[in-house]
């Protein structure tokens, strides 16, 4: 028997339904701002399930990170989208039928596996403090994962800055950085 109470199981199922419904709504609603908040609702529902599964720290990180991420995404929506408010109905899709087919095929494939696999019994009890278990793993047995993640995030910071920078020093001063006067749209910029 699971340690989850009947109420917890009911909450998990309800939150699961909510997360899928919100996920579908992302691609159904007209307004892209609404789509962003539908995606946020989906993430918050999953965070609620994580709480029920005794992972409060990861639930907190998910909720916090996704709330901020979706707020940023809403800003980008308004910057780039022609129809952020959804005032005129429009669809921006290509090959919707093939995509729906592939999405459904993915779901069916995974679901058939889920319901036919003979799942093993749970090994051991749930630890009293899952956050402590994660912290000890990060600083001990699984430190390599965190090292790779750290380097990856640092590379992301650099690559993101490089990609998003309009004009860097090589644009201003040439490939050898030796131009006497920087090539600026508005002259008068400081030399190197």
């Amino acid at each position, binding site marked *: 028997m699971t340690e989850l109470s009947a109420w917890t199981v009911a909450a998990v199922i309800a939150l699961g339904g909510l997360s899928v419904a919100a996920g579908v709504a992302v691609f159904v609603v007209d307004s892209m701002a609404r789509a962003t908040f539908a995606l946020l609702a989906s993430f918050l529902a999953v965070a609620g399930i994580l709480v029920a599964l005794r992972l409060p720290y990861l639930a907190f990180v998910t909720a916090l990170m996704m709330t901020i991420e979706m707020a940023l995404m809403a800003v980008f929506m308004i910057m780039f989208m022609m129809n952020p408010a959804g005032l005129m109905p429009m669809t*921006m899709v290509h090959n919707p039928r093939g995509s729906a087919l592939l999405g459904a095929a993915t779901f069916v494939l995974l679901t058939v596996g889920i319901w036919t696999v003979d799942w093993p019994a749970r090994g051991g009890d749930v630890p009293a403090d899952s956050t402590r278990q994660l912290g*000890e793993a990060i600083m001990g047995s699984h430190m390599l994962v965190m090292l790779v993640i750290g380097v990856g995030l640092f590379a992301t910071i650099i690559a993101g800055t490089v990609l998003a920078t309009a004009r860097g020093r090589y644009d201003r001063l040439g490939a050898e950085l030796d131009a006497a006067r920087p090539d600026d749209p508005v002259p008068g910029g400081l030399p190197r």
Partner: protein
Amino acid sequence: MTAELVLQIVLTVAAALVGVGVFGALSQQSIVMIMMGFELALNGVLLGAAAAWYFLAPQSPDAQMVVVVALVVMAVEMAMGFAATIAIYRARQVDMVDMATDLQG
């Protein structure tokens, strides 16, 4: 309800999230909406890993690390996606994938 049944239900929810995410990533034209499809699929991975931890191997932190990795992948995908969107929009006013077909065979 047995633990196995609850595990299967939660994993089915995760599979549904992945399926909807695949549909979104394949069908949308706007780059930002494609990224939302990726995020939704990763949301399913996150949920599946959490369920695997609780119902199968709670004594091992491996599944928790998978959740952490999924969260990091989401952050990296978001940052690099928006950086690439800004770069290609600045260069060519492209904000839809159908307008960026340079690598089409």
